[in-house]
């Protein structure tokens, strides 16, 4: 045996005829990789793969392994035998590759040169939790990026916050040109992209970079303090044309219904409310109707939610073509996305087109164009809060009449006799129109000239135009009417809004390396941007027939205008940035930006934003050369000032409250019809920039051959001169003035760790873990005040707090405290709140901070498994330790929340309420004499913590061999589940609902005497379109 071996060795060396091994290098998806280096282990010989990823190499004796490397991928060692032929080597991308280029705003940097807190997320990662927009896909993926759902309404976008809130009053409604005050800046291919995230087809996105700290965002100056999301769209690439086609189809079902009283429980609830009547005990104005009494006798228990909710469908398909030669690259894409809701006739459709061309005239001149066009239709008949009506309907009545016809007014005989059957949403769909059409075309072109070897001048021109067209019609006797109506009461409306933004940027860059060790990059910018918005619309009353809908207002009995809006804002900017790297060890980035904005007062229009970032690549130090367990260690320290230009145009000029709400008729003739206004806000001639200064300390690391990589960032930011609508004593004539007031502070810690737990030939398991905690607080208020009760601001507390009475239970029979309390006098079964000063009077002095909306921590874990051709990813995200508002288990004396909660008038979400025989401390006694429980607002504060499985995605990639002669280069089929289950949620456990994540920012019950509703940073769970669980089946093909 030994001899034989020896002979073959000899013969091998004698004839110098080493055996040839051959194979193919493919990426993680099975696509061939051209240009990968294949090197013999422990030898010098190496080769590179050809365009098809193939290689062949002589294998000298004694060598039994090869190393495959490729930029941006983990180097992989594969054992080989002399007989190895046509082996396929799959290599895996290394997210921590230091030579990788990252987009940093107005340019790119090598990852090793980055000094700020920047996170990249690839399209592949985003696609693991496929959704209609990238924001939802980012949930639980990036430390410090906190995303809250805006409901399951088709086409709706989520709310995103980077490193917490910093503004005292936030405007969450992102119009096409002004972002919400705490919403990050979105930049697409270098051009600021205002407005809706859903305008962007997520399939057009190649990569997302999130700039978190001020040293990174300061180059966006006045728009940088909320963080910046840089989106790079797919562009053409060199090589033969590649055609890709991706599609998936999904089915969505509600997570569950809201639990309401069934027939017998409802009858008991009404009886309990009559018994609890505090004005006239034993009586009620809301007894069972004749029909309900009959229904109770014959066992009717209608589940209205079940009758309405249906299965939702999602269908997404995208076709892409890219290719090009050395001089010209092109990319094209066409997409169609449609989603139907769980409420009848809710539908969202998006058509998108993408074109990119990059052309190089010669080594000095390059030009390119990028066009992203989307057309969206959103159809929401009945709006987004249909369920809030469903939960109030009586279960004791039948939706159909004995003759099988629809029971149009099922609650006839009750106070709500005129309520129309919700099934009219289905049976009379033609008579309900609520449709929005949005068209947006986002274009950018650039020209680039390189000169004097190290200089590059680039001109970016962006032109963004969008149009919204909203159409509404409400026919007679449909669910969307609050009551039975006649044709004369039908309403219609049409409104149109147009917005455009143009951006011009002149960028000069200089890039040179001196004496091998000094790498200097300079970027200079002069830019201007103008936003324009205008809208108009009309309402009509009395449309003669349903089929006309809103097509001819001349046929209406009367029409009235909506408020017209027109505004423009301009931004003028100068920026300079120097990046200096010494010996790949020390890096310094210095930025200076100056922004001038039209919306601020003359004399205060300009502000300068400096920033400094430094980094030390410790691994590149000589003394680290021998530390083999550490592959990368980089320390980053940054400081910068950024701003927020959230104030609306014309605030410095003052306005008079005017428009459709101040009209009056003196008498009934047209001669007496007048338009009017009221002086209700004050101009601020000193309005200036709000700014944030932030320190960031970060550490990037990679150990055990990059098996464990990650970053830890700590930050401390202070925001000053905050733009707020300052509440003034009303007696001076105006209640608000936009002002620069107060300071807030955000401190936080963010940890991201990626590990490769198992890596073998056939099996690979990796984990991404992100965790973040942010602590926001108000640092100071004007005049050194410790609090500002007019706005519910408290020094030391988070920006948005719940300031209300503190519910400490329910008054129980015989409680001696009942006698001590003189105002208001209370009885057993009512909500007991804390009498802080113990004076026996519950008054403003007893209000206290009882909660807030700031999570103690947020986080996510993504586990990815690959076994042979199978891949599996599981995304889990968590938000822990904050309150949410649940208005539907609460109400105040007005109509907020669930109107008539615990009155016994309507059905409602089932709760554990007090009766003399059920002395609970959860919910008060139903009382037919009041429209809501005393101190009812205190019922709505619920622990909103949750841990959820966000998505599960299982895929199978066909092996290239199988596809060899089909002309198809790769196919992956997959099945995925979105929102499959919830691991932990006290809210769900208590039976209050199915999803604690929140689906809105409005609708909160106003605490007695005001508060909360003035804040928009609250997170509410409303009885809106219910959350769904979705299962998708998809395929991705490349030709």
């Amino acid at each position: 045996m030994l001899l034989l071996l020896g002979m073959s060795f000899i013969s091998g060396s004698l004839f110098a005829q080493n055996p040839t091994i051959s194979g193919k290098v493919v990426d993680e998806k099975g696509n061939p990789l051209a240009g990968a280096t294949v090197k013999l282990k422990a030898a010098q010989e190496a080769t590179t793969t050809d365009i098809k990823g193939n290689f062949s190499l002589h294998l000298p004796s004694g060598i039994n392994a090869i190393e495959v490397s490729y930029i941006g991928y983990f180097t992989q060692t594969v054992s080989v035998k002399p007989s190895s032929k046509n082996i396929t080597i799959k290599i895996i991308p290394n997210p921590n590759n230091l030579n990788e280029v990252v987009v940093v705003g107005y340019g790119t940097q090598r990852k090793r040169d980055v000094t700020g807190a920047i996170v990249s997320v690839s399209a592949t990662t985003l696609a693991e939790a496929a959704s209609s927009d990238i924001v939802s896909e980012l949930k639980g993926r990036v430390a410090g990026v906190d995303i809250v759902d805006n409901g399951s309404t088709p086409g709706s976008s989520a709310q995103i916050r980077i490193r917490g809130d910093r503004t005292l009053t936030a405007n969450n409604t992102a119009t096409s040109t002004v972002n919400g005050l705490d919403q990050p800046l979105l930049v697409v291919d270098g051009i600021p992209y205002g407005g809706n995230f859903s305008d962007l087809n997520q399939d057009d996105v190649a990569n997302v970079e999130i700039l978190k700290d001020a040293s990174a965002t300061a180059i966006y100056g006045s728009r940088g303090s909320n963080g910046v999301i840089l989106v790079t769209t797919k562009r053409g690439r060199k090589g033969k044309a590649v055609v890709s086609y991706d599609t998936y189809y999904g089915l969505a079902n509600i997570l569950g219904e809201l639990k309401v009283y069934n027939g017998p429980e409802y009858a008991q609830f009404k009886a309990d409310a009559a018994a609890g009547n505090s004005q006239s005990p034993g009586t009620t104005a809301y007894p069972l109707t004749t029909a309900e009494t009959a229904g109770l006798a014959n066992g009717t228990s209608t589940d209205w939610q079940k009758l309405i909710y249906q299965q939702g469908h999602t269908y997404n398909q995208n076709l892409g073509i890219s290719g090009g030669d050395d001089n010209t690259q092109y990319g094209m894409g066409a997409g169609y996305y449609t989603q139907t809701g769980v409420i009848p006739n809710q539908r969202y459709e998006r058509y998108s087109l993408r074109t990119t061309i990059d052309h190089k005239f010669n080594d000095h001149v390059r030009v390119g164009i990028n066009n992203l066009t989307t057309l969206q239709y959103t159809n929401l008949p009945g709006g987004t809060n249909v369920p809030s009506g469903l939960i109030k309907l009586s279960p004791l009545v039948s939706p159909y009449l004995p003759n099988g016809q629809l029971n149009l007014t099922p609650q006839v005989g009750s106070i709500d006799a005129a309520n129309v059957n919700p099934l009219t949403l289905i049976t009379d769909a033609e008579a309900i129109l609520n449709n929005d059409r949005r068209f947006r075309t986002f274009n950018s072109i650039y020209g680039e000239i390189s000169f004097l070897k190290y200089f590059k001048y680039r001109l970016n021109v962006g032109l963004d135009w969008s149009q919204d067209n909203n159409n509404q019609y409400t026919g007679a006797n449909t669910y969307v009417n609050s009551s039975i109506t006649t044709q004369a009461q039908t309403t219609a409306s049409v409104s149109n809004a147009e917005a455009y933004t143009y951006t011009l940027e002149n960028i000069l860059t200089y890039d040179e390396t001196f004496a091998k060790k000094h790498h200097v990059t300079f970027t200079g910018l002069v830019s201007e941007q103008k936003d324009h918005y205008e809208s108009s619309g009309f309402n009509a009353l009395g449309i003669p027939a349903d089929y006309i809908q809103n097509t001819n207002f001349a046929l209406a009995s009367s029409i009235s205008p909506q408020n017209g809006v027109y505004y423009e804002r301009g931004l003028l900017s100068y920026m300079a940035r120097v990046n200096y790297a010494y010996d790949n060890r020390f890096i310094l980035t210095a930025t200076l930006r100056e922004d001038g904005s039209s919306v601020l007062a003359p004399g205060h229009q300009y502000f300068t934003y400096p920033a400094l970032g430094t980094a030390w690549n410790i691994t590149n130090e000589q003394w680290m050369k021998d530390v083999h367990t550490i592959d990368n260690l980089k320390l980053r320290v940054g400081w910068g000032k950024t701003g927020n230009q959230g104030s609306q145009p014309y605030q410095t000029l003052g306005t008079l409250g005017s428009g459709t709400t101040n009209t009056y008729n003196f008498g009934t003739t047209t001669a007496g019809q007048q338009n009017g206004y009221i002086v209700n806000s004050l101009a601020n001639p000193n309005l200036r920039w709000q700014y944030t200064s932030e320190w960031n300390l970060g550490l990037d690391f990679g150990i055990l051959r990059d098996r464990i990589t990650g970053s830890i960032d700590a930050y401390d930011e202070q925001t000053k001169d905050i733009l707020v609508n300052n509440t003034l004593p009303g007696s001076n004539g105006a209640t608000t003035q936009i002002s620069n007031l107060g300071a807030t502070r955000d401190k936080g810690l963010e940890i991201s760790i990626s590990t490769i737990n198992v890596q073998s030939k056939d099996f690979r398991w990796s984990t991404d873990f992100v965790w973040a905690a942010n602590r926001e607080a108000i640092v100071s208020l004007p005049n050194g005040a410790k609090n500002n009760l007019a706005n519910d601001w408290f020094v030391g507390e988070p920006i948005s707090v719940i300031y209300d009475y503190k519910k400490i239970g329910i008054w129980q029979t015989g409680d001696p405290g009942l006698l001590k309390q003189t105002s208001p006098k209370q009885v057993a079964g009512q909500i007991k709140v804390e009498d802080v000063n113990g004076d026996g009077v519950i008054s403003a002095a007893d209000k206290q901070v009882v909660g807030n909306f700031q999570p103690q921590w947020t986080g996510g874990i993504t586990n990815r498994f690959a076994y042979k051709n199978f891949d599996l990813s599981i995304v889990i995200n968590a938000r822990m330790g904050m309150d949410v508002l649940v208005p539907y288990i609460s109400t105040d004396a007005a109509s907020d929340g669930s109107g008539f909660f615990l009155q016994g008038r309507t059905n409602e979400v089932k709760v554990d309420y007090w009766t003399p025989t059920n002395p609970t401390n959860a919910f008060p006694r139903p009382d037919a004499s009041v429209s809501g429980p005393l101190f009812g607002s205190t019922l709505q504060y619920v622990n909103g913590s949750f841990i959820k499985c966000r998505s599960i995605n299982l895929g199978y990639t066909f092996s290239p061999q199988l596809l060899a002669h089909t002309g198809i280069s790769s196919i992956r089929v997959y099945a995925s589940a979105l929102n499959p289950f919830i691991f932990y949620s006290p809210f769900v456990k208590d039976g209050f609902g199915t999803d604690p994540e929140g689906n809105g920012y409005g609708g909160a019950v106003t605490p007695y005497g005001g508060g909360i509703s003035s804040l928009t940073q609250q997170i509410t769970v409303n009885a809106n379109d219910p959350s769904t669980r979705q299962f998708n089946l998809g395929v991705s093909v490349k030709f």
Partner: protein
Amino acid sequence: MKLHSKISLIIATISLMILGSCKKILEENPKSNVVPAFLGTPAGLLGGLTGVYNDLRSSYGTEGFTLELYAGTDEMIAGSQAQDAGVFNLYNGLNGLSMNGGFNIWYQDINTLNGILKFGPSSGLPAATLNQYLGQAKFLRAFCYFYLLTTYGNVPLHLTFNTQALSSDAPAPPADVYAAIIQDLTDASTLLPPTITAPFLGKAATAPTALFLLSKVYLTRGWSSVAQSSDFQNAYNTATTLIANKATYGLDIWQDYASAFAPANDYGKEVLFVSDHDNNVQFGQFSSGASGGAAQNVLPNLFRWNYVSALGINSSAGVPQVSSGPASMVRDVANGRPYTRAAPNTPYTITHAFADQVNDSRYGKTFQTFWICNTACTSARGTLTVGVDTAILMPGVEVTQARRNAFKGVITTPSQYNNNVFPTVKKFDDLTRTSPNDPSTRPYCIYRFAEAYFVAAEAAFKLGDNADAAKYLNFIRERAAYRSTNTAAQNAAAAAAMDITAADINIDFILDEYTREFYGEPRRWYDLVRTQQLIRRVGLWNPLANANIKSFDVLRPIPQDEINAVLSGPPYPQNPGFH
């Protein structure tokens, strides 16, 4: 030139153009907003007055505001569907948090009016128009301050246009506020035209409106702690002069009490001042089916019981009226939308104040007491014919069981009245609506000319001339005796029976007469507070409210919002007694 050179040149040219044009981008030119400079223009002055009138209608006739005008008195108790039964009807836990709206709006109006008075004289308007505008502004400013003063007692007084953001403010002495009101009304009564003049059509303020309010302000100050000795005399003189000159102003009382509330007479001779409404979507802000909100007049709904659900026609005597058997009524335009926010306080209102239903026609003209069947139904006592048979009858007196048994519908008698079932105020019914759920588009009458006789009578009583007081009340009482269905002789006899003498006059009689004349017209709390009878009368007639009312409840608490927003200077004081 090579292509790429051309491209380079184009890029360079564009970039130079940008650098040249950029400064202009920072200039602001608003278009769709009304800017403050507009205030000084003729159209701006009219627009400001319009805005204030619109604010009045966003208070009067809307639910929350109107509640505060009548709740917690002898006349009414909380209805079975009252929104805030405990706080305003019962004074249980009333504090600064109970009042968080309204207050600011009045001051926005005042500041707008201050602006009009400041910029008006330099606007270049012709003198007649200018006088009318300034007269309107002064009247409205006085109206606002009178409301604030009588509601809150201790309120700031600002008579100049404020454009500064201030975080301090303090109440002015009530005497100063009264003086400012009286000055404004005196001026307005000469600046305003004697009768309605365009563009202030309908029933906007005129000279007699200013005079009427002036008489009422004198009367109110006369009762107050800052009274001046001439106040009752001034109130008397102003009111009686107004009555004497009624022909000049086109004012009078109708022969028939019911005519004062007939929709045809909404802008008639007895109506002095209204907050206006219209079914025009734009200028009337009409919203079909609206259940409330700014500019929506829901007054007709507030005092209406739910004739649909609370009563089955098989109910009989001696038992509370509860639902059983088929409903004989469905909601319709004629019978209106039931809010059941307030119910008559039966012992006082029905049994005491409206005790005389024979000579005094006002009971029958104030209350709807029968409902004609509007949906087919059969009771144990027979089938009711739609549009013919009476489904529900409230005869106002107890009846025998035999009569009940003979009646196909149901009879409800005073002993069965509660806060759920009761005679309904019908004065404001709006039959022109297309849907029973639509808000009313009739104007809300704030001042009715009949009240001038009451001011005269009350002032005469305070001046010690009860005979004269009786004389003015007899104008009202004799009119109340009139029925169009009676013969002249019957009317004369009834009028004679209604006449009172000086001996009948005392404060309780006057307040009872206010109830008979104005029941349902929201104002009662103010009448009782002005005459310093609130605590006593609540004690006499309203045991539910009496359990909580305190001596300090004659003022409303200062809204906590105002107290919270005063952040510099001395803290804004809460009214005594309130926490």
